[in-house]
């Protein structure tokens, strides 16, 4: 008796919980814009509702990491349900671009974004940027001890002192910049040097944590990891600070998050409206005010409250089209990172 009651109860509970799940994925009357989003979720959670408020267009997100989602889009091919693809970094976007799945963006639509941060093909656009930095443990070392160039980290005096996360799109973009600026031989030598010198972690957040806790002196990461934690609790940033490279050094490389519209989308007009919102002053301001702490690329908007404003960065002149993700993966496999 008790068992039967329990079973009936469970059945009812399951039914009430399944129903909303089923209807949520069933046919809505209004067509919604499907975004495959690899950017950090808080960013889009701030932006999407504002976009819907302004245009009346509903948005749905599928979240994941850059290269998971780019691989998924390539697998899906023409049948992809996605209308828009947003990445954290450029390699994933380049992969979808190379597969011929992106639709050209109208030039006037992306005009607010400086040309350096758009590929020459015009198939996608950057919308926020992150700067490469060294994060260092303030109990063990100081800014004066930091190297003039990212390439110096391959020198023997840095042995056992550096940490980085070679897996994932972020570090691959940094290597791509080194490759573009210094050429293949120098890049390979550099990779071998930092492999010998460094400790490898699987994730930038883990690198930051290791540096802050004094496991290791210096880490190669992007600026916003430290900034975010600093704003949140200081749990993994209270014993560390950031060092920015300058003078166009490869280490001052600024990588971009990309946005593109898929050829297979049947909602291109709405998708373009979203891209327009993403790069215009209003959308960029929302991004700047969010928890993401990444640099908006529209010059009309400034990111406040971070260690270094965008205008003071001195990045090397690298166009996103020149980043060769394939070659980078080959080199990193040869060196034994992958």
């Amino acid at each position, binding site marked *: 008796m008790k068992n039967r009651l329990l079973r009936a109860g*469970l059945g009812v509970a*399951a039914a009430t*919980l*399944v129903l909303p*799940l*089923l209807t*949520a*994925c069933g046919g809505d009357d209004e067509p919604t814009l*499907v975004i495959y989003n690899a950017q*950090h*979720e*808080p960013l889009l959670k701030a932006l999407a509702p504002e976009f819907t408020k302004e245009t009346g267009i509903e948005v*749905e*997100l*599928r*979240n*994941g*990491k850059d*290269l*998971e989602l*780019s*691989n*998924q889009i390539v*697998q*899906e*091919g023409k*049948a992809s*349900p996605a209308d828009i693809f947003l990445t954290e970094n450029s*390699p*994933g976007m*380049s*992969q979808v671009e190379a597969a011929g799945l992106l639709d050209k963006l109208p030039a006037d639509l992306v005009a607010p974004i400086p040309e350096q941060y758009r590929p020459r093909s015009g198939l996608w656009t950057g919308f926020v940027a992150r700067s490469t930095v060294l994060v260092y443990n303030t109990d063990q070392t100081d800014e004066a001890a930091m190297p003039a160039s990212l390439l110096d980290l391959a020198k023997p005096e840095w042995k056992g002192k550096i940490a980085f996360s070679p*897996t*994932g*799109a972020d570090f*691959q973009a940094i290597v791509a910049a080194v490759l573009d600026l210094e050429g293949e031989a120098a890049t390979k030598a550099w990779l071998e040097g930092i492999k010998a010198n460094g400790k*490898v972690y*699987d*994730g930038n*957040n*883990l690198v930051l*944590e290791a540096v802050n*806790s004094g*496991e290791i002196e210096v880490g190669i990461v992007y600026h916003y*990891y430290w900034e*975010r*934690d600093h*704003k*949140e*609790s200081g*749990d*993994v940033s209270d014993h560390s600070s950031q060092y920015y490279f300058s003078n166009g050094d490869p280490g001052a490389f600024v990588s971009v998050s990309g946005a593109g519209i898929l050829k297979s989308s049947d909602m291109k007009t709405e998708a373009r409206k979203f891209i327009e919102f993403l790069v215009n002053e209003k959308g960029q301001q929302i991004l700047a005010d969010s*928890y993401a702490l990444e640099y908006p690329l529209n010059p009309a908007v400034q990111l406040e409250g971070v260690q270094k404003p965008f205008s003071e960065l001195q990045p090397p002149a690298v166009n996103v089209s020149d980043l060769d*993700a*394939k070659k980078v*993966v080959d080199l*990193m496999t040869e060196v*034994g*990172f*992958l």
Partner: protein
Amino acid sequence: MGEATDFLWRPRIGELLWNTVRLLVLGVLVSTAVGVAGAWVVERTDVPARGWWHGLLCAPLAVPAFVNGYGWVSTTHAVQSFPGAVMVVSLSYFPLVYLPTVAALRRLDPAVEEVATALGKGLWQVFWRVTLPAISPAVLGGALLVGLHLLAEYGALQLLNYPTLTTAILQQYATVFNGPEATLLALVLVTFCLLLLGIELLLRGRRRRARVGSGARREPTRIRLGRRRPVVIGGLALLAVWALGVPIGALVRWLVRGTSSGIDWGELTGAASSTFVLALLGGLLATAAAVPVVWLAVRHRGLVTTAIERSVYTASAMPGIVIALALVTVSIRAVPAVYQTLGLLLVGYLILFLPRAVVSVRSTFELVPPNLEEVARSLGCSGPAVARRVTLPLVLPGLSAAAALVALAVATELTATLLLAPIGTETLATRFWSDASSVAYGAAAPYALALIALSVPSTWLLARLSMRSR
């Protein structure tokens, strides 16, 4: 072919293989030793508050391995090493051995052990030569489960900074233009799984395990711990603190310290209820699918049926992303209508987690004496009636345990869920990873705590079932 050899025949792959093998061997051994020792103490000695210790030894099942990893890494970096990795995974997975072992010890007729003692065998000898062989199917099943978990483990090992073949596969998918390389690594992993299955099959042997005794089984006489009591209690307490106190303590610390931890209750309950539904459906489905597989393998033992049973294991040794991407490709080409629907996601879970159900269902099926079914038949019961009136009541606890185990696995699954779930579906695990990897630990903590809370009923069910004596 030449390219494949070039890719596999490198120092990096050698290092990954070595890491995988030694973690697998030591992880399984340590988990098994801890699990069996715990079960023996709880079931065969006069340690006080046995019910409480039983609960505490089952409870680590409710703490996902990656949460345990986070807790330990934020406590000490010493765990980012080989011994550390072995310790953390063993702390997470020993209950998988503990549970079936407790159940087997309960069912074991104490008379056998008492006869051995009466014949002058010492404590150790009785354990090694009588008890252990008798409970070996349960111990082996648990050890196999630990091995399968270790082969597929990603989250905890990533945090522990311990690269294995599995983390390398995930990393291959985190590069552009991967394809063949990741598939090659996955094949190596499948080989490992086959090896594991072969070993288990060899050790299992062909013995039948069902007991047909007369009357009910008596309570065993418990061994007096005497002066060793404080040591034993101290050991159990240490185990509980390490497996439960450390991760939960870390989560609470984040919750208190983080400013991003203003909890969005709407999102939290949304994620919790979709996790609950997916776990429930996944658990029921996998259990239902496991029954025919096991029934064939146990009642109609033969090469073909064993092959069928073993084949379900191979897919589960591959990381979720391999299965998920395969399902993406197949479904979008063959049946686009089911792409990214609940149904397809459940198929993914079924492929990934069926073996966990099979192990658990199998260990109960083996304890049902076929004679009972034969007697029922000879008394005029039809086939379905025998199944309903004789077999089902006997195996029901095993079925519930299987459903609970799979439900726990589904609740913590990440990659297949991300790729295959209906758009907009958020589970506690996807939310936790999204927040934790963007350094919003304060925001991630409530999701991890909710995941633990949600896993308590399954764990409780498993703990209860293992204490039933039949």
